């Protein structure tokens, strides 16, 4: 266990890096990294639920969809500034998650996975339902305004998105950290390790589990809201089941029960699919094999195999240790005068 000042130091270094990065990267990278920030927020929520409380969720994409649609409807229909819809989207989605927590209470392990999987499948098609189509735009979706820098700030739109997403990510990171380090975090971990033991030591399962679902959904909703703002569009195709799978992958790869790991997980899920075919090209060309790695499916294979490797080399294994390695590195760098 590292001491608290070191953690603060690390966080400060991380925050400084995040804050300065846009000065050194292109507009496009800033836009891409804004998406990483969004993933960080989504993964933080999932990490509280899955990593700490041990509740599997394959439906996190559905919560993002709820947040995204909230923002899209409020901005396009009621003309509310997108920035103000973010907390609303978070709170509304949090409420939805909290309510979903009640039925989820009765489901353990694999059954919860099934139920949340079904949620991920069902929510996007609900947006097409005729009676609410007027609000959701049906299959055609809702087109938002292009992201723009507000209040006359001297920033490009991409840089603004970057700071918006990462600013919120930092804030929510601290909030999550405060949450899991205290009494609540201990209770959640106790539930993860052994529900019966947790109950017998006086922890209320319904209270904590629904709370964890609510918190997780709140984060998902904020992330979804930002997602809608950055891509200036929502429709059912924007939230495929694959998104939920991707998010769960991010949490696992980042290391379960590690908040810092989510940054690694977010980078992983953003960049791996884009560069998977290059990753594959390298060993194949070494082996002298001429295989078309740009073919459809090839990136998915790489991505799946890496996920598999991470899982097989120890549940919080490879990525966990990779993340630990990175942390150790930043640690030692931070200590240098």
């Amino acid at each position: 266990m590292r001491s608290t000042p070191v953690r603060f130091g690390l966080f400060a270094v991380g925050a400084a890096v995040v804050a300065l990065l846009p000065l050194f990267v292109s507009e496009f990278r800033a836009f891409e990294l804004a998406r990483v920030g969004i993933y960080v927020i989504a993964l933080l929520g999932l990490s509280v639920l899955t990593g700490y409380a041990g509740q599997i969720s394959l439906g996190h994409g559905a919560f993002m969809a709820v947040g995204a649609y909230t923002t899209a409807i409020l901005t396009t229909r009621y003309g509310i500034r997108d920035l103000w819809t973010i907390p609303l989207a978070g709170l509304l989605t949090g409420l939805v998650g909290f309510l979903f927590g009640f039925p989820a209470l009765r489901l353990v392990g694999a059954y919860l996975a099934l139920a949340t999987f079904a949620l991920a499948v069902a929510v996007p098609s609900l947006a097409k339902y005729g009676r609410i189509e007027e609000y959701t735009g049906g299959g055609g979706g809702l087109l938002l305004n292009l992201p723009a820098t507000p209040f006359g700030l001297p920033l490009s739109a991409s840089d603004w998105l970057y700071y918006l997403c990462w600013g919120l990510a930092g804030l929510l990171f601290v909030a999550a950290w405060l949450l899991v380090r205290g009494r609540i975090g201990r209770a959640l971990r106790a539930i993860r390790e052994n529900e019966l033991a947790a109950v017998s030591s006086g922890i209320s399962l319904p209270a904590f589990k629904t709370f964890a679902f609510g918190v997780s959904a709140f984060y998902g909703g904020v992330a979804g809201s930002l997602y809608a703002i950055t891509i200036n569009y929502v429709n059912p195709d924007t939230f495929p089941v694959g998104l939920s799978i991707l998010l769960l992958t991010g949490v696992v790869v980042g290391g379960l029960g590690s908040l810092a790991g989510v940054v690694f997980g977010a980078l992983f899920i953003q960049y791996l699919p884009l560069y998977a075919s290059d990753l594959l090209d390298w060993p194949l060309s070494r082996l002298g094999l001429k295989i078309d790695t740009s073919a459809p499916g090839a990136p998915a294979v790489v991505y799946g195999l890496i996920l598999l490797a991470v899982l097989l080399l120890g549940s919080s294994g490879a990525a966990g240790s990779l993340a630990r390695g990175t942390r150790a590195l930043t640690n030692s760098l931070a200590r240098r005068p």
Partner: protein
Amino acid sequence: MRRKLIPLAAVVAAAVLVTIPGAFAGSARREAPGVTARSVTIGGTFPISGPASLYAPIAKGMQVYFSYINARRGPDRKRGVYGRQIVFKIYDDQYNPAQTVQLTRRLVEQDKVFALVGGLGTEPQTPVRPYLNQQKVPQLYVSTGATTWGADRKQYPWTIGWQPDYQSEGRAYGDFIRRTDPSAKVAVLFQNDDYGKDYLAGFKPAVGAGRIVAEVGYEVTAPSVTSQVAQLKASGADSFFVVGTPRGTIQALVTAYRLGWRPKLYVNSVSATDAFLTQATAAAGSREAVNGVVTTAYLKDPASPKYANDKTVATYKRLLAKYAPGADPNNGLYFYGMAKADTFVQTLYRAGRNPTRESLLNAAVNLKLKSPWLIPGTTIESSAKSPFPISTVKLTRYTNGAFTEFGGIIKTR
């Protein structure tokens, strides 16, 4: 207490940094991004994998044609266009608009493409349209027939479609039925999304009130359409209009045949290609399942005996065999991709020896092109007044395994 101050300080520091003006302004913009003396880089997003991946051959067809253009000597005796090789960057957006946005920005800001060509899908292309127009990057010849690509050009001047729009195509079937079969009782099966509804918006008013006796939607993800087709059959209709993407359409035709229902068949052009109808024939085990299907055509059909000796179709088959061995030449989507790539190449020639984005756009929206890829007697024409480059179709009927065009040329716009 002091410990708690440290993160606070960090947050303050971050907040201060946030407000520092974007220090490094971008360097002065070059005349034409993506254009060098030896190359022109263009790009597009397509569903290479995922649920809509059956459209992937369009991207392949375009790529094949550009490879050919790069290898052959053009009218100016140079390879490529005015000696510039065409570099076509394809990204797989899996038909997910969130990916399309990211990949399109990548094409524009990172790969610095000259223009976007042939991007596929109404929904994926919708959110990138305002962005590309803001950046003044041409979004040419999108691979979707939604009416908005032509109809909303005032608002989005940098965007233009290519194929006849769905509403007009729907109207063509409606007109045909009203004219030739006034007592028709029509049942409609449509894909339950904006694509299906766009067709219906043209079809319904044209066919006339009262002729539609039943209409049922189906979900593109549904494993089967049997229930829907059985409902439509029970309506007692004698004509069956199917508006779907290929898989649902094949299922619908096969199911109608199996249920012993033999109405007059009308199928929208996206799904009524020889390859898909051949598939339906094989699945039903009988030609009767697809015999008499009426659809519209605006491109030559590479599978039709009518064009067996056509020069363009022969070139198409030769190129496909050379650059994409194993690809099925009867799959009209390859032909569609090559025809579209050819339109782009001709546009690029018309944009001049030193093309700019403005000159390219200008060429694309003021096009007059006798394209050998289109059915004879039609041309590709666009103007400020009529921003639908292809606005001519012919009705065509599938009989005994081949399409035969009939009737006159129909102006859709």
